[in-house]
């Protein structure tokens, strides 16, 4: 009977350990170990229910030994499977995390490179900076130069017109003077005609005087000749002046043509350049906005990548955890194996195992607190 009561206690102890462990532990590995313990307890209970009577009937240590060794082989098998799985998880996660990290770094680098390339293109287009600023001609500078040239052209055109019109005005004044000269010439002709008439009268009077007036008749004749000459001269002057007036009219026409230039070419060109500059300004504005946005996007990408890389620390934690699982499983295997050489009864061997497990637990309690703190820190930065 004391043997029976002792056997009843074994699952109870295991269950209790499992319960305590599951209550105490938060981390997945401890939960796993707790479950394992509970499973072991369950097996033992099942065995006892099935074979208890038989064992009791046999009342020998052979049955217990068999149970013990079978149980140990199950546990060993399980522990080694767990260890293997843990190591596999660790290596897979580790590899993936490393690759992910590399990919993210590459992504960040490439997005920065892309941004720099675009900024270079933009600054090249805008002509903000270039390797040899003196020799390079940007579109903007060209348009501005063109604008300046057209402005100068327009100014020149206006200046020419202004001076031409001034010249035309002066020519007009000259023509007025010519017209006045013609008037004066007319007056001279009248005087000559009157002189001619006077000379005629003098000749008539001289003829009436007879021989005494003969000398006077000669003088009157001379005066008539003079008046004729005067009229001829007058005609010549008039003719010359008329020629000069015509020439001046010609000059006026030429100057007028100089003054009258069509402004439409200049105006259209100027309009086009203005439109071009305005459009350039708009394009520059748009590009600046886009570059700013691009920088923002690149910054965001880099932030995201940094966050992702930071999150990849979970790899370390998973690796740690799987390592712990592996180490624990290995320890389990070791403990189970070490007790399998039956140096005494099965009961004492199980007791020995239990004592070993307890001692190990106690030892683990110290290291666990440290590792768990790490995990919790990882938890905070992760999620």
């Amino acid at each position: 009977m004391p043997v029976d009561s002792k056997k009843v206690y074994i699952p109870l102890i295991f269950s209790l350990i499992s319960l305590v462990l599951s209550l105490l532990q938060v981390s997945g590995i401890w939960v796993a170990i707790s479950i394992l313990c509970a499973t072991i307890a369950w097996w033992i209970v099942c065995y006892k229910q099935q074979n208890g009577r038989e064992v009791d009937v046999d009342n020998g240590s052979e049955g217990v030994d068999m149970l013990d060794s079978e149980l140990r082989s199950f546990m060993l098998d399980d522990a080694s499977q767990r260890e293997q799985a843990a190591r596999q998880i660790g290596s897979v996660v580790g590899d993936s995390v490393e690759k992910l990290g590399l990919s993210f770094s590459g992504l960040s680098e490439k997005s920065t490179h892309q941004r720099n390339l675009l900024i270079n293109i933009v600054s090249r287009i805008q002509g903000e900076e270039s390797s040899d600023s003196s020799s390079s001609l940007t579109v903007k500078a060209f348009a501005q130069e063109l604008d300046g040239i057209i402005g100068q052209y327009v100014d020149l055109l206006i200046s020419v017109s202004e001076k031409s019109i001034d010249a035309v005005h002066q020519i007009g004044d000259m023509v007025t003077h010519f017209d006045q000269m013609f008037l004066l010439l007319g007056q001279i002709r009248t005087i000559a005609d009157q002189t001619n008439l006077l000379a005629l009268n003098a000749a008539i009077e001289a003829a009436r005087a007879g021989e005494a007036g003969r000398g006077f008749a000669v003088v009157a004749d001379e005066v008539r000749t003079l008046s004729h000459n005067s009229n001829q001269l007058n005609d010549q002057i008039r003719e010359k002046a008329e020629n000069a007036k015509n020439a001046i009219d010609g000059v006026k026409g030429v100057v007028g043509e100089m003054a009258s230039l069509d402004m439409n070419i200049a105006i259209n060109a100027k309009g086009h350049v203005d439109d071009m500059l305005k459009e350039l300004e708009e394009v520059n504005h748009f590009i600046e906005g886009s570059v700013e946005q691009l920088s923002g996007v690149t910054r965001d990408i880099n932030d995201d990548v940094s966050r992702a890389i930071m999150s990849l620390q979970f790899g370390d934690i998973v690796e740690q955890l799987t390592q712990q699982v592996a180490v624990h499983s290995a320890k389990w295997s070791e403990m189970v194996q070490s007790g399998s050489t039956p140096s005494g009864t099965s009961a004492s061997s199980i007791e020995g195992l239990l004592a070993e497990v307890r001692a190990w637990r106690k030892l683990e309690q110290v290291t666990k607190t440290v590792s768990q703190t790490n995990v919790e820190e990882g938890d905070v930065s992760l999620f």
Partner: protein
Amino acid sequence: MSVSTKVSSDNRELTVSVIGTFDFSCVQDFRASYSGDKQYGKYTIDMAKVDHIDSSALGMLLNMKKTVGEGIAITIVNCKPNIKKIFVISRFDKKFDFS
């Protein structure tokens, strides 16, 4: 007659109206419109009926300004858009008043 003048009721302002094309053909008439003996305090050029101008019109206006004196205001009014554009490109908006 493509140039006509009108003196304001207070006899202080002269308005010169040009009709049709403001070009070299107007040179005598335009000059005659302002170069009388009488000096006015203000001159206005009415461009309402002008369809086209060339550079000689600009020369005429500049000569007018020179004749009446820099201190006397010359206002150009009722410009059609295409003509206003010519004045702007010629930077006349800095030399004359526009309204």
